[in-house]
Structures are given as C-alpha cells and as structure tokens.
C-alpha cells in the first residue's frame, strides 16, 4: 500500500504539470483546469492499481476530457476572455496578437469542438483516437473540427489565411 501510494504520488508530481497544461488548453481557465485535474486524479486513484503503469496518464487524460465535455455547471475563477476584437494583422510581428485572437475564439467554441481541436493540434492525436476519447464516431470528430474552423474563419484575418491556403492548394495541383 505504501509503495503504491508513493508511486501514485510520484505520478502526480511528475505528470501533474503536463496534465494541468492539457486541462488549461481545454478550459482556458486556471481554476477550472486545477479542478479538472484534481478531480481526475482523485477518481483515477481509486483504480490506479488496476490500470497498467504505462496507461495511467492516458487514463487520467481520458477522465479529464470526459469530465470537461460533460460539465454543465462548475464554478469558475472568473477568468473569462473578453470579446473578440477585430484585429488587423499586417505581418509576422503581430503573431502574438494573432495568437491572442485564436485563444479568444477558442473560448467561444462549444466544449466538444474545443476538445477536438486541443486533442488534434495540442496533443497531436489522430481522429480515431480523438473519437475513442470522446466516445463518438470518427466522422463526428471531423464534423466538430470543421464547425470549429468555420467559427475561426469568420474573423477576417483567418479568412484570408484560408483563401491563401486554397490558392496554394490550387497552385500545387
């Protein structure tokens, strides 16, 4: 018991920060991220002995994602992004402003859409794994991602990016 407790403590210490970063990418809120990770670690603790050591982190991440998409009401730290401004990005020096805009748009997305983007582009998971995590079909993942990008492209600078991409694609063909 003592060894397993120490082992779980080690896991929390070693992987806790990464789990918090993941939860923060999902929630965009430090307080909620801490709640989410803490809840997941407490739940996972009950089953830590049943889950292979190498799979414990993915198990905890699964709990985090599932809890995040199924939360209805949860206290917030009040860290709410403001309205999305109409920024005009002129060159690469405005990258920070551009990222800030993306972050704000992410906050507007429904949770499942944001979860898909985070799992795809932050975690780098293929759609099949994202689908497994979210308990839905691959096609649903693609649909959720597509709907999220529709929201992103509503903003003029991102719409331009999409056009440029379409032009590049045409030239390549």
């Amino acid at each position, binding site marked *: 018991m003592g060894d397993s407790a120490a082992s779980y403590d080690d896991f929390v210490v070693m992987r806790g920060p990464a789990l918090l970063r993941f939860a923060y990418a999902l929630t965009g809120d430090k307080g909620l991220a801490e709640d989410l990770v803490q809840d997941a670690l407490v739940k996972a603790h009950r089953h830590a002995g049943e889950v292979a050591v190498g799979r414990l982190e993915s198990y905890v991440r699964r709990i985090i994602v599932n809890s995040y998409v199924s*939360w209805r*009401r*949860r206290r917030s730290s009040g860290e709410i992004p403001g309205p999305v401004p109409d920024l005009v990005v002129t060159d690469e020096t405005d990258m920070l402003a551009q990222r800030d805009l*993306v972050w704000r748009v992410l906050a507007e997305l429904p949770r499942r859409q944001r979860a898909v983007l985070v799992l795809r582009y932050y975690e780098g998971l293929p759609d099949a794994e994202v689908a497994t995590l979210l308990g*839905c079909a691959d096609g649903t993942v693609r649909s959720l991602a597509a*709907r999220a990008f529709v929201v992103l492209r509503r903003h003029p600078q991102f719409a331009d990016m999409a056009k440029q991409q379409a032009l590049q694609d045409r030239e390549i063909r």
Partner: protein
Amino acid sequence: MNELEQLLRDTLVAREQDAPDGRRLLGDVRARTTRQQHRGWPAVGLVAAATVTVIVVAVQVPGVGDETRRPLAAQSSAPTSTASSSTATGPDPAAVSVGGDPADIIGEWRVTGANETEPTTLTFHEDRVTIQRSCGSQDGSWRASPSGLFVASTASWHPECEGGETAPSWLTAADSFAFDGRNVLLLGRDGSRTALLLPVETETAALDDPSPTTSHGGEGTKPGIFGDSVPVTLEPASPERLIGRWVPLEDAPPGQALNRPFVQFMTNNTWTGSDGCNSQAGRWTATDAGELLGTQGGQTLIACEGLRPIGQWVATAVAAGFDDEVLVLLNGDGREVVRLQRA
C-alpha cells in the same frame, strides 16, 4: 497542416506558460484521496434478503413537482433555499458544484433534511436503490450523469409502512446531485435541497467499481457520453419538446400486441407507456442540451408477441435528439435506441 492549423497549434503550445504550475496539486489530491479511503461502503445485497416487496403496476408519483419542468441548465440563476426546515445542517447548494462521478453515489447513506419522521437510510446499488425504514423497505431505480442529472423512482412498497405506498417526495423531486465533501446533496429542479445524504460508516471494505471506465451501473452508460453526445446531425431535444405521446416510427412486427406501443412524457417528470400488452411507467428528466435519463418502475408481466420494450428504451437512454420531427433516443454507446414519432 495548413497555416491556420499551425497557428492554432502554436497558440495552444504558447499558452502552456500560463497554465497552473501544480505546486498545490499533490497536497490537494492526497487530502482528497485520504478522505476517500476512509469512506465506508456497504456490501452489495446488504438489505435485499430482508426486503419484502410488492410490485405495483404504476410508478409512484410524488405529491410535488406537478408544475412544468424548468430545464436544469437554467437553475444556476435560480434562487436557492433549503427544501425543509429540518435541523440537518448542510451547505448552501449554490456553494457546491453540481455533478461528479455517479459511481461515488453508490453506497449507503443516512437521509437527513428530508422531513422523514424516522431514521431512514438510502442505499444506492449500481442498478437499483433501496429506502430502508424500521417498518420495511422500498425498492426502486435511479440514474445519474456526470454532469449532475439525477432521477429516481420506486417500484415497490412495504405494506407495514405507514405511507409506504408513496415514493418519498425528497427522492422523486430530486433531479440533480452534488457532492459536498463526503456528503451528497439531492437538489430539486429549482436548485433547492431535497435531502442531505450522510455516508453511513461500515466496517466493510471499500467496494470500488472494478472497471476503470464505468462511472455508473446503468445499462450502457460510461463517462463522457451524456448530453453532448447528441450527434451533430440531430437537434438536442429540450424537455419541453419531449412532452407528449410518442410511438415507434417503425411498425411493430406482426404479433398479438393488444395496444399500440407508446411512451408519454408528462410535465410532472413521470412517463407512462405500454409495450403493447403491459402498462409501464417511470420518471424522466432532461436538459436543453439533450441529456435524457429515465427510470422504469413496476409493470404487469403479460406475455404476448410483438412487444416493444418501451421501458427499456427510456431506462437506457442517456440523450435524445430530433431528426426533423422524429425523436431519436440514444444509449450510452451513442447508438440509436429507437426512433419515435409524435402520436
């Protein structure tokens, strides 16, 4: 990866620096897991052998809650008040977070703050719930979702219990749950507390759910598939739109069913129906996000061919959505249970 996708990835990675550092994480987790280890759990079947039950045809309908249901999602702004003048002490429901792992509800609880005139315990098993008083017990069913949705009903009564034929209103009026430390709060549709459940300490070893991926013993349920699992092709079914009488879209196979199968969702959060030969009933609750949970009460057991398992459909659904005007019930695997049309 196109430019927009790359920007998205860069943004998420860049924001890592703003994430919490986790310095308090180990201490907080240690404190909570220590409390968890000290929680007592009953042995499954602890009370079943001593229970004398009589199956009744219709589910018990509480004497409260006949007004039109307000979606749970709207409750956060509702004024809160305690449900009774009991001496039980408990936190302000508004101060606790609704929802959690339904598996944590499984166990034996002492009922307080619920106008019970004698000691009452409530035992949640994976697939049923038992109310125990000195005069006897009542059995029923319950379901809950991680987001906090809760529904319970009784399907039996004990003849020696005064008023034992009636399901307690503090249980049937509850449509959400919350954890406050080791205690469970049952909350009504207006956010007020209907009962405070205190854990009954036993010497029984902890009975953990053996499956890491199971959050609640309801058939086909697993974490993360509630509510938001309504496919994008369906419009989440709001509680108001569920009200009414529904019949299976597909005709029943040729058989000897006496009546046309149906389910009728009523505004007092009960449902009645028929599988074609047997009357069925239960309770239901839903949210605007498309979450739907139902219980099935007692029923007659007339055997005839061509039955449609109406009660099972409702009792295994976790979500509901509309495909145009067709109501689609979905189970915990995200699969369609049945398609229904308004009668």
